[in-house]
């Protein structure tokens, strides 16, 4: 679904944001990108959504190389990739329904599609009764749900999330993670950059750690601070499980299990 080959991004000819990234993400994967600020997580997300072009290397998404793709093709790439951000990016003068409908309208979907899809996705994110509210009338968590709904209403193959819980309190974050997990189970590939130790540790999904622009770890069922499998230029084959060394007890790390019980974990998390 996603294959990054030797991607390097240099800003202003001097600042290397990511260096020689090699990464393969299969369809239906749920991947956390972790690492300190400035490690290149956001740059990688921006490269995947083609907000930036790689300085070197190739990036394949859904079978298409997007790094060298002409600007005129980018809109079509964006239609297979949904994006969620820390700051929600909702339009304040549109209602919840209109915000989500907007995403369908501007890519040319006719009204009947809008009218059938938006209520469905509102129901999915648990805001079926709040379609006529304005973003300012919602809590942060609800706003982020709207944002997820907007990213998902077009049924993208991939959902990219850059710190989606960064502005939310731990309990609310759990709700968002449940939602992303649910979306992942529909077969949507999810790539999420995060600082949130507790979430990563509780979810026990694939963890790709970046440090100073390089991949330094890639665990298939990892935690936030795992053992480094390598220190320097890391080209890590995917799927190499690492011994997890979590201090936090993870009751129920579930790839497939029913409702996650993240709440209890989050309480002690050091996010």
């Amino acid at each position, binding site marked *: 679904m996603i294959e990054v080959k030797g991607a390097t991004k240099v800003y202003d000819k001097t600042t290397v944001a990511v260096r020689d990234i090699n990464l393969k993400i299969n369809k239906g994967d749920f991947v956390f990108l972790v690492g300190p600020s400035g490690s290149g997580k956001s740059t990688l997300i921006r490269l995947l*959504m083609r907000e930036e072009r790689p300085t070197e290397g190739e990036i394949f998404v859904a079978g298409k190389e997007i790094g060298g793709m002409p600007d005129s093709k980018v*809109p079509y790439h964006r*239609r297979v990739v949904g994006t969620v951000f820390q700051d929600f990016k909702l339009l304040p003068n549109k209602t919840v329904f209109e915000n989500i409908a907007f995403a369908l309208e*501007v*890519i040319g979907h006719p009204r009947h599609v809008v009218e059938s899809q938006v209520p469905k996705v509102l129901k999915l994110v648990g805001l079926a009764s709040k379609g006529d509210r304005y973003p300012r009338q919602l809590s942060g968590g609800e706003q982020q749900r709207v944002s997820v709904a907007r990213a998902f209403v077009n049924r993208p193959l991939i959902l990219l999330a850059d710190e989606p819980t960064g502005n939310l309190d731990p309990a609310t974050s759990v709700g968002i993670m449940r939602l992303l997990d649910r979306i992942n189970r529909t077969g949507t590939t999810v790539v999420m950059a995060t600082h949130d130790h507790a979430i990563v540790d509780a979810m026990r999904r694939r963890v790709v750690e970046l440090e100073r622009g390089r991949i330094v770890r890639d665990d298939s069922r990892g935690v936030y601070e795992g053992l480094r499998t390598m220190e320097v230029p890391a080209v890590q084959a995917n799927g190499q499980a690492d011994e997890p060394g979590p201090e936090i007890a993870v009751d129920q790390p579930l790839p497939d299990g029913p409702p996650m019980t993240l709440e209890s974990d989050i309480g002690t998390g050091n996010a």
Partner: protein
Amino acid sequence: MRAEYLIGEAAANLRRNLLLAVGAVLAVFISLLMTYAALIVGEITRTTTLQWQEGVTIIGYLHEADLADHTVVVDRAQSWPEVETATYFSKAQAYEEFKELFANRDRWIELVEPAKIPASVRIVLADTEAHRAVVDQLAKEPSVRKVVSPEDNLNDVLTVSKFLNFGAILLGATLGVSALVLIANTVRMAIYARREEIGIMKLVGASNWFVRTPFLLEGLIEGLLGAGLAVAVGWVGYQWLLGSFDIGVIETDLPTSFLLSRGMLVLLFGGVVGVLGSAVGLRRWLKES
């Protein structure tokens, strides 16, 4: 739903920035009014001078009293070395010419009696340099009442009209540039006002044309409104001037087809200015993804 949406957005942009949009429309209007007026005045001078230049360079109107001397004057003028031809133009011929010149002024023709139009001698010069000398010499002839030399007036008219035309076009072009800049500015303001929306449109995969079209339409509407206003005011103004002042021998009556074709040209120009202006406004923003 698409066309409806795009036009609706363009209209919303215009409404949101009404003051700026009005400024842009007025700039286009004034610029193109100058251009339209210059085109009309240019055509008037062209047709008028064409008519005047039909070989006649000097006319000597003759006294009624000494009809007998008329041929003498003509013969004498013909003998001057600077003169190529000197022709007698009788009252009857003059009346025919008058009717022809003012074919569309029936009232004038009714009012003028053929007998009141003087006979004249018409001189075509062999040597145009000698123009002045021939005029003076002809004026000394006793049976010549008055010498008229259209060329003098013609040259003045031509110089003045060329100068005015050039000035109008220069001013029109300058205002045209300012209109373009103003439109670029309104579009930029509209983009700025909607930058969040545009950001999200690009995020969810709206095509570039879908994002751009409302802004291009906005510029186009501003350009066409200004141009339409210019053509309307120019046309009405011209008709009004035509009705108010009869400028004698100047051929002021232009065919409607001319006004129409030049009006279309002006409209086209307004549209181009509008689209170009919004393209300039969009340019910087388009670079950013």
